[in-house]
């Protein structure tokens, strides 16, 4: 036992006074390993976010339509935009041609469930996902450059090309989320539960 430890054991009052200094010394009595009892209700770190800050980043769109912005678009405008901004990577008409490897995924295809490749027509369960994804990530070489009207138009064009909506539909926040996707009925939530079963 070193001198300091002897002192501490002999003088409990001093132990209290020196609690900070002795925190790293070997002691018989174990301090509780968790500090959770001492945790404050709030630490007070961080700052309130302003409504403008939230609006600037809150671009997500939910399947129930929450988050769809103002604006509208149609198939005709979408076709022109697609040719200008998307065709170079996703193919002239979004269809995968045998033997041609596209830089981006095929976007248009057969809507029947088993057909390949996976496209918006046969594999996307929600139309809102299409809007959300293209607005945040496409075109790949200029992400975030499309206006809301442009995203509505390209969404209309791609849904029409996949035979999901008619050519005269004008898409906006009121009807986009109501579009029923052919693949919706195929999707199931994870039914694995852990445990011995192979699923």
């Amino acid at each position, binding site marked *: 036992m070193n001198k300091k430890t002897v002192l501490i054991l002999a003088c409990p009052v001093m132990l209290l006074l020196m609690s900070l200094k002795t925190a790293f010394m070997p002691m018989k009595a174990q301090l509780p390993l968790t*500090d959770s009892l001492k*945790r404050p209700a*709030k*630490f007070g*770190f*961080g*700052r*309130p*976010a302003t409504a403008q*800050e*939230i609006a600037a*980043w*809150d*671009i*997500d*769109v*939910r*399947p*129930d339509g929450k988050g769809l912005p103002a604006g509208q678009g149609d198939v005709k405008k979408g076709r022109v935009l697609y040719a200008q901004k998307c065709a170079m990577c996703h193919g002239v008409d979004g269809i995968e041609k045998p033997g041609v490897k596209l830089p981006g995924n095929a976007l248009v295809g057969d809507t029947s*469930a*088993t057909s390949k490749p*996976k496209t918006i027509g046969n*594999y*996307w*369960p*929600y139309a*809102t*996902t299409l809007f*959300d*994804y293209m607005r*945040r*990530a496409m075109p*790949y070489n200029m*992400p*975030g450059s499309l206006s809301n009207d442009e995203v509505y138009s390209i969404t209309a064009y791609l849904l029409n090309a996949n035979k999901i909506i008619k050519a005269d539909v004008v898409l906006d926040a009121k009807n986009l989320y109501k579009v029923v996707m052919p*693949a919706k009925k*195929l*999707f*199931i*939530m*994870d*039914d*694995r539960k*852990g*445990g*011995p*079963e*192979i*699923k």
Partner: protein
Amino acid sequence: MEKSGNKDQKVATGKISRRTLLGGVIAAAVLPVQSLFADEKLAENSILPEIADDPTKTVGPGPSPVGKRSPFEQSVRKPSDISSRTPLQDLHSTITPADLHFERHHAGIPTIDPAKHELLIHGLVENPMKFTLADIKRFPSVTRTCFIECAGNFRTGKAEMTPQDILGLTSQSEWTGVMLSTIFNEVGISDKAKWFLAEGSDAAIMTRTIPIAKAWDDAMIVYAQNGEAIRPEQGYPMRLLLPGFEGNMNIKWLRRIELSEEPYMTREETSKYTYPVKDKIRMFSFELDARSIITYPSYPQKVNKGWVEIRGIAWSGRGKVEKVEVSTDAGKTWQLANLQEPVLSKAHTYFRYLWDWKGEATEILSRVTDETGYLQPTLAQLAEARGVNLGGYHMNPITAWQIKNDGTVLFKPETIK
């Protein structure tokens, strides 16, 4: 004192050795990938640094600000346009060196100034808040070792495949950060919140929906990897860590969390990271089921007759590894392997099994059982459960290595159709 020390060193090192060494390192960098066990090959190679026969007769270079690997070690990731794979066959235990951690990005690696980076938390919360990196670091911190694995971590097709080729999209680090529950407590979460959206600040503005239970269980926001700031490829300056959940959900470059009563159905949880199960498509498969692989001996290594220590890693996204069994007779019989302690939950666990190889052609395999009682399946069992149109996600079949009479080791690619 310092001065004379420097002087001594200068005198002793002289001019030549510095130069030779530098040139040597550069030359060594162009060497083809070598496995740790291919010593013979390495020795044959003549472009290694010029080295004195006796290292005790020359004073070497002095200390440096940042260390480097020995020029003899040529372990590298295997990059493609969208991912890079960890050289699992070169590792001797379960921590992946941070610069060899696998990568999977959807729009490249953003360069983020840590002084400007902020995390926004909003939606179904009492107080929408923004936290700087410095704020996040002030909260009580926690350190945890666990693996991260891409859900699309399965490749097959030919015999000349290494563990890196087959399943190199899994790595393990010691992560440090704050429990997500601590941060959620700070903003105050509404009872109505059942899910949260996590978003990255890369050019994909990557988003995934995560069940709120994970936040109260073991989710973390981490800023350190193996003791240092996390690498840009791993989400610098902060990422989400969801132990046991598929890699894509562990959002890197984390900038926003939104609490919600419903999932968002983002592209990455619908069009991607989903897979056919019979005539349906399974989505929201979060936990990675138990898996193992023998990393030694494996292709392109060779074995010699006599004692061979079979080594590998086993892990489960659902908890601890309970046991690993090894077969040296193509799956006819199985023996228990030794597990390296400590066995951590949702972590790569190193296993070893001593085998006296008599020189016969055979197959060696490993299979793990996790603490939930799940036994790693064969490819055929997976096909039976899910149908023959298996997608590329959540594949965890037993891996077999063929041992040839001459000691050559080859992967055994299997097909189900």
